[in-house]
């Protein structure tokens, strides 16, 4: 950004007196072209940073609305015109990263946070819940998740569920091998792969995780055991 004004300043210095007047037609066109290219570059850079900033800032707002939800406020939208609601919070304990998960992974929602795919069950329910997020923002840390890592999902009803990450794999988006009705209570985290690529590719990086049995509220309920869980956080 600082290049351009300096550059123009240079030129201004060159032909201070009547600089524009002494430009012939060809020179004007070339200069205008350069200016346009520089402007486009600026806009792109700005857009890129805007997207990142949006992802960061929205998480703060989302966090606020999620906490409101935990305190019992129903239908707390992060901002009045948002067309999605917050659903859970996912924490990678070892890595120390947290993100608020939204419902319905439309492109819109994904810009603000990780989202649970609408055609999969909620985390902790029977089946495989799929949470997807952008590799370059909210799920940048997914590459650091190792088998055995604990992932804590706090649902909006206040239940804390612990999942243990299993293996990770790479698959095409339309050959994910994830079955939403698979037996057991599973969680799959998905993001794009390769991590450092800049183009949008067909490959996805998937981390499979399984509910750690002794933390499952449904299992406990079935046992009729002591009410260790659900734990109300906050």
């Amino acid at each position: 950004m600082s290049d351009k004004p300096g550059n123009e300043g240079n030129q201004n210095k060159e032909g201070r007196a009547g600089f524009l007047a002494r430009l012939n037609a060809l020179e004007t066109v070339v200069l205008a072209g350069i200016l346009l290219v520089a402007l486009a570059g600026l806009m792109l850079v700005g857009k890129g940073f805007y997207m990142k900033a949006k992802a960061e800032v929205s998480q703060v707002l989302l966090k606020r609305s999620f906490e409101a939800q935990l305190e019992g406020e129903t239908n707390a939208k992060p901002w009045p015109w948002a067309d999605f609601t917050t659903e859970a919070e996912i924490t990678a304990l070892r890595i120390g990263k947290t993100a608020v998960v939204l419902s319905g992974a439309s492109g819109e929602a994904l810009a603000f946070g990780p989202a649970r795919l609408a055609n999969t069950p909620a985390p902790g329910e029977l089946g495989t819940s799929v949470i997807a997020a952008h590799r370059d923002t909210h799920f940048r840390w997914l590459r650091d998740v190792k088998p055995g890592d604990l992932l804590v999902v706090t649902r909006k009803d206040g239940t804390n569920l612990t999942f243990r990450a299993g293996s990770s794999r790479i698959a095409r988006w339309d050959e994910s091998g994830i079955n939403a009705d698979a037996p057991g209570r599973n969680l799959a985290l998905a993001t794009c792969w390769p991590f450092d690529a800049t183009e949008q590719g067909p490959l996805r990086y998937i981390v499979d995780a399984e509910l750690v049995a002794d933390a499952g509220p449904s299992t406990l309920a079935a046992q009729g055991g002591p009410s260790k869980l659900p734990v109300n956080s906050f």
Partner: protein
Amino acid sequence: MQIGDRFIEGEIKAREEARKVYEQAKAEGKKTALLEQQRPNIFTNQVANIGPGETIVVQIEYQSSVHQSGGEFSLRFPMVVAPRYNPDPIVQTVDLDPKSGYAVNDPVPDRDKITAPVLDPAENAKINPVTLTVNLNAGFPLGTITSPFHQTDMQTIDDMARKISLKSGSVPADKDFELSWNAVAGKTPNAGLFHETQNGKTYLLGFVTPPAQDAATQTYPKREVVFVIDNSGSMAGPSIEQARNSLALAISKLRPEDKFNVVRFDDTMEVHFPSLVQATPDKREDAIAFVRGLTADGGTEMLPALEAALRTQGPVETGSLRQVVFLTDGAIGNEAQLFDEISKNRGDARVFTVGIGSAPNTHFMTKAAEIGRGTFTLIGSEDQVAARMGELFDKLENPVMTDIAVSFDGANAPDITPNPMPDLYRGEPVVLTAQLDGATPAGKLQIIGKTGNQPWRIEMDVAKASEGKGIAKLWARRKIDGLEANAYAVNDAAALDKQIETVALANHLVSRVTSLVAVDVTPSRPAGKPVVSTDMPLNLPEGWDFEKVFGEKPQQAIPEGQRKASLERQDEQAMLIADRMAAAPTAHAASMIADAGKQVDLPQTATLADRHILIGLMLLAFALMAATTFSLWRWQVRGLASEVRDRVR
């Protein structure tokens, strides 16, 4: 048996012989299939020498008569053998001398043969897909047709015929298929006679529905009802719900002059009232509360409950009807013991069975009701409770047609089944099959009976019977059933087996003593290559609770020391099961197959932010370079220009 394009017709052979043929062919590496009867309603099929990736199709044909009650016809296609509860043998210590050992009388001698591995639905996808098409040719104008447990597509051929198929194409075999239909109003047939000629003999199938008596003129006898309800683990889920509701309804329908009692059983049992009590409103309330509080758990020890119901309720009061109503899914393997108990200790009581759940053991319950001179009612879902129980009350409250006899006037009919004819309840038809000498018999079929003190009689002309198919086999099947039913009365078991074998062989039927075996001509397994055997697992019947049937997995409440041992034991067990299921579709494979089309598509999860920034930076860099080049160029041009100007000056 179909291998590729070739068909190999199976042969009926005596059971032992068939097994030998099968084992020999298996050893020789030939493809072979063996169909055996383990129970009148459990058949097992074995196929040997299936090469990797090969498909072998086994075609089995069977006949079954349509059930008819209260103007409704129904066909039941069983899809799954529910896991049976097999009581453990009672181990009696004969002597305290350590050398003498034990005398064991196993109530289920063939427990291995009737126990297939069952997939835990929590961990496995449903397997064994079934496709089904019914070509219904009713012979009378059809009214409504319903399939209460499956969604179906119906195609109308004409007013008497329909083609029915499953809506979803195929369904997992985890609950019985039922189709019931009735005639359009006023067209319900009340009699029918069909014949089939085979080997110079004529086989007849006839049915007659006696007219219902006018309800106003009849008096209700006093009743003494003992309700027996099964609350074992196999009833867990919707079944116990249906049983509870059915029973509560039944109790509420009792009249104050009736007497009743309630028995519940799992592997323990409990008789609610010390003896039969008058059905006063408060006693009924009390019993209904007891029934509503029942939960399903534990094994199915049916015998003690049956004994309690039949033997310990005191003598029947004169002028009263003693009725035992038995609500269960019949998921037991010791049928013979129970039949024996009913036939020996029934006395004047009549046993009515009510089958509950998605895959009840209908053979046991039909037979138990037959031996108990009652009826069998089937309740397959919650919404059938009221209607079917209503039908049962009709039967319980209305007088029975007794002393039914069938004779042929002018034709020689040595064999009529069933023999003797069972009593008839309201709305039920007499259904009989008979074997007649000669291909074109003439004469009259006479049925007589008695309702209370009123005689009833009907005649049908044999020559007017219309053509039917499969009647000979049906007759033979019923003949065998009759022979089997009398097994406990016959001392000479070998002679009985011989009789059954003769009938079965003549009519090409699989029975307890005959099996169907098919053998390919050429060996297909290369010599020296090993064979691996596996049992095909079954689905758990719909609505069943796996843990209640097979026991829950041990919970964490075990102290640390024992825990390790128990974990090892669990591992061993798991390995045993894994071995048994080897090569059968594994849980994983089955779920892959079942859900191949259902995977989740992942959304695009890369933003263009980085790309935008990168391209933006590149554009800026380019602009910078271009600007620099431009200014350099301009500076040079100006330098040149001023030089030229200088020279000119």
